């Protein structure tokens, strides 16, 4: 995770797109040759309801500066109500991230239907701009806890945070 100081900050955004609406919309953006910021890296899930809050936390701790979740519009879920579940989890997760001092703009939930390629373009551009303005999240520099890993560094971190 080297950062080249000479280069301006480019955010990394991980996106979780549902297979039926938002991923298809991203395909449509491609087919329509709509150019947008290259910062968003999409991971395809079958439904936004599959997004475990841990995925978001994992992405942020692995070096993502923001996470975008894309699902079908309410009432349009291919699985009836997965997007409602996604929304509930999103609201709770956002409260938690706020408590951790992570800005609201770094986690975004959007309903993007299969016909809204232009919305993929708009949301990706907007979010990239917003996070570029916020600067890097820098969670990635925090040593990760692991069973066989570096207990001392973790302890040091706890000390830093609590002091």
């Amino acid at each position, binding site marked *: 995770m080297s950062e080249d100081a000479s280069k301006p900050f480019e955010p990394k955004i*991980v996106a979780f797109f549902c297979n039926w609406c938002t991923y298809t919309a991203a*395909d449509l953006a491609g087919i329509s040759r709509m150019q947008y910021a290259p910062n968003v890296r999409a991971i395809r899930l*079958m*439904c936004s*309801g599959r997004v475990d809050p841990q*995925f978001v936390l994992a*992405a942020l701790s692995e070096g993502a500066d923001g996470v975008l979740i894309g699902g079908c519009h309410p009432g349009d879920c291919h699985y009836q109500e997965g997007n409602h579940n996604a929304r509930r989890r999103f609201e709770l997760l956002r409260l938690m991230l706020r408590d951790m001092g992570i800005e609201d703009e770094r986690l975004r939930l959007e309903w993007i239907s*299969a016909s809204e390629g232009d919305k993929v373009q708009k949301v990706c551009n907007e979010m990239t701009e917003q996070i570029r303005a916020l600067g890097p999240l820098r969670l990635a520099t925090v040593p990760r806890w692991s069973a066989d890993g570096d207990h001392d560094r973790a302890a040091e971190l706890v000390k830093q945070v609590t002091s």
Partner: protein
Amino acid sequence: MLEPEGGLTSQPISTNGGPRIGVYVCHCGLNIAGKVDIQAVVEFASTLPNVAVARDYKFMCSDPGQELIERDLRDGLVNRVVVASCSPLMHEATFRKATAKGGTSPFYFQMASIREHVSWVTVDNDDATAKAKALVAGAVRRVALHEYLEPRQASVRPDVMIVGGGIAGIHAALTMADAGKHVYLVERESTIGGHMAKFDKTFPTLDCAACILTPKMSAVRAHPNITLWTYADVVSVEGFTGDFTVRVRHRPRYVREDLCTGCLACIDACVHKQAKIPAEFDEGLGKRKPIYIPFPQATPPVVVVDPEACIWFKTGKCPRPCIEACERDAFDFEQTETFEEVKVGAIILATGFKTFDAAKMPEYGYGVYPNVYTSLEVERLLNAAGPTSGEVVLRGGGKPKVVGIIHCVGSRDAKHNLWCSKVCCMYSLKLAHMVKERTGAEVYNFYIDMRTPGKGYEEFYDKILKEGVHMVRGRVAGVTDEAASLEEEGRLVIRAEDTLIGSVRRIPVDMVILAVGVEPQPDAQDVRRLFNISCGGEGFFTERHPKLAPVSTFTDGVFLAGACQGPKDIPETVAQAGAAAAEVLAMVDRGAVVLEASTAFIDDAACSGCKTCVGLCPFGAIGFDDERKKASVNEVVCKGCGICVGACPSGAAQQHLFTDAEIFSEIEGVLEYV
């Protein structure tokens, strides 16, 4: 044999049993290679963990491209496959098949979309290459964890349902019934026939619509393999491809369909001596009684009672001479809605279109000036079985001497519908010909562009020109009854720009025909939800692939035919209906369908019995063993959304191909390297 371009085998092949991943980067001609540095991606991929081989090829989806994968698998060089190319929605099935042909599970495969998600949407080449590398790394990291899965199959029920009894539904029903399949044809109107039944003639051959349609309608009714349900609609759909349970509502006609012979004696006997109610089938130009039949060849030939207008239903006081007139004792005023469930293997949606509401363009005066008509109204006027027996008689009486036809009403218009409705140019030419033939009137066509692609269509245009129909190229500004000269007095005036002579013209006419465009049905969104398919932004149903799967949808087992998918003329609609029937026949005759592999499962040992998943499953696929306090997934019912998996607090619920571990690895992959 083929010599792959730039094969890189820098990594030593890992020990037996471990993942040995082959990464295949597609150029897609210049679609990807024009933006992404393919060599850089291949070199990068070869350094990723567990990658045994990284190659590139011009078109991975071509036979030689697929053979690369098959050969590497068969040679034991690799045991997992990553293809970096187009979207998985495009070619995942292709490459899974290639992987299976290589002798392993088709699910030892992952795709990285570096075309739709990278090369086509990124401005800068370096940015595109970096993003492509990140997506490849995500795919490589996750595929290493893929488990061995066998494709699951389910049997297909032989019966088929068709929703919509226009020409699309009729043609598809007859095709499949002739092939020996049982078809349930559901139509919400009281007769089949759809829009085509309203037309007098069809372009460009000018053969009579009824002459070619009504024999097919009768054939539907007579066919032993077709169950025809009119005045009925679908209220719920459950199940999955190959095994749908469809619930159909039968609305009451207050006449028993099995007894009514269509003698129409009851209509004559009705206490309403005059027909006073605007007839829907005649676009309100003709009148009907509370008991009626939409048109003489209605199929089934069964009368309908309109409870909104029938005196018996309104007051409870009517001697009901209709009952007496009926020799078959077919009346049943106690009829109520009934529901019926059928099980079918596949469904074809042929729900058609509606025409643009001309009142939305007040500048054309529809609904204000009586002599402004929609094209569909004129179809009824021209129809020999229509309200005027085929005479073009104006609302105020008399025949028109000059007629103006305005094209593109509601179509190609940023204020209304952006799309071209495709059929209006041709039907406007047809109407021009017929109106001229019947009345001898001067006919002006006001058009933006004349669009006549199709067999015999341009020739038809040429014929109409030679008949002396006037063509004015330009959008019409408005229709008014304000006269600016003596000649215009008492007439309608069409004001239009004539772009060919470069001036604004005022043309006084007696009749204006608005060539209204084609729109999705008003309830297309409800139907879409009912059948779990999608609509485009304009509201027409979305096909699985615009070129290669034009009659399939993203929901397996549900197919499309006709104008519900987009504007179409009759030949195209019939061709599409035949295609949909063929797709269904292929599926039904195969007898089995491959099911989605990404079902959920519960790790019994980890399940704490909290039941979170049980309540969340939208399909009731999760059962609970009260004794053992463990949940379990019925994999036949599970649709593979993963909602339960995302919610399980103990990580016991998992999803094939989308396990937590696989997704965590993909997250690491897309972030860690680039």
